[in-house]
């Protein structure tokens, strides 16, 4: 009997990254800007998408992929705004994976401008899974507390955009948006920060304008 070392060098998370890279290539080729939204449950991801649907309507088309453990509720809310939406129910999995998105992608119309993917509500696991998005957007709502970026750094470190949501509740809560933003920016200085209330509309026009500009940049890169 002889002992032997065998070099393996295989990334167990690599399969997801490969599928995500294919999705990114395909969406870029189609000229679609894909945004992955992640946050804790109840931070307002669906409400932000509803508010965006009302603002991106003129001249732009969007579609939404919804991820949840159970129910079609979020997709129904989006469809009620006249926006095509697909619901992925993970049946227990705490995050979306690229292959789940890949399965739906064939049904997404080719002539849309924006594809938003609303991840399963969870500030931990979705941060570890690339879905092929061009922009990752993390939400932090005022009731959650301004100490969250430091406690859940991976979500903030891997995001491009931070939405401080439910700004209409700030008068009633000890949440300090400056402190939350400063902590998030310490973790990731590249974050673009927006303060908004999707329910009242505050800050939503600026966010919609940002996505329109990002779409133009994405298409310019392709050209």
């Amino acid at each position, binding site marked *: *009997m*002889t*002992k*032997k*070392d*065998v*070099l*393996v*060098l*295989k*990334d*167990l*998370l*690599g399969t997801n990254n490969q599928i995500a890279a294919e999705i990114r290539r395909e969406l870029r080729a189609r000229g679609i800007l894909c945004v992955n939204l992640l946050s804790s449950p109840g931070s307002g991801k669906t409400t932000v998408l509803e508010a965006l649907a009302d603002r991106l309507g003129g001249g732009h088309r969007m579609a939404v992929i919804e991820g949840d453990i159970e129910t079609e509720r979020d997709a129904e809310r989006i469809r009620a705004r006249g926006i095509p939406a697909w619901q992925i129910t993970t049946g227990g*999995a*705490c*995050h979306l994976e690229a292959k789940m998105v890949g399965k739906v992608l064939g049904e997404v119309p080719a002539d849309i401008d924006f594809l938003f993917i609303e991840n399963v509500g969870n500030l*931990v*696991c979705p*941060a*570890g899974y690339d879905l092929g998005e061009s922009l990752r957007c993390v939400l932090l709502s005022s009731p959650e507390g301004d100490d969250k970026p430091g406690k859940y*750094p*991976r979500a903030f*470190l*891997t995001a491009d955009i931070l939405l401080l949501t439910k700004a209409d509740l700030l008068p009633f809560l000890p949440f300090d948006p400056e402190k939350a933003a400063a902590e998030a920016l*310490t*973790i*990731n*200085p*590249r974050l673009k920060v927006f303060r908004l209330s999707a329910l009242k509309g505050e800050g939503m026009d600026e966010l919609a304008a940002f996505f329109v500009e990002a779409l133009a940049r994405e298409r310019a890169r392709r050209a």
Partner: protein
Amino acid sequence: MHELSLVAGLFDVLEEKAREQNALRITAVKLRVGRLSGVVPDLIESAFDAFKKGTLADGARLEIEVAPFDFKCRRCGGTTFQGEPAAACAACGSTDIELIGGMDLVIEKIEIEIPDP
């Protein structure tokens, strides 16, 4: 959080390698866990111990190395360095840095026993 399914994937690879190499036993497995992989070494160990029973890796030693964050500087271009999330470029001090590594879970190598030639 998803360590159990990752370890199931690990055993698929171990089985394949063992077959390829005609191994009698797997005596050690070395993993490199990125700081940002979201994978918890203690949970990997528990899942590994549960999975290995009755396999060729029953009795195998699991070694886990935690790999640091890897960054690339966007300003001076090309400079890569290791550091903490709020790090500045080691060469030019810029904080315009891009995270390029530390997110993976890699099976580095395995130690096996093969029949004498």
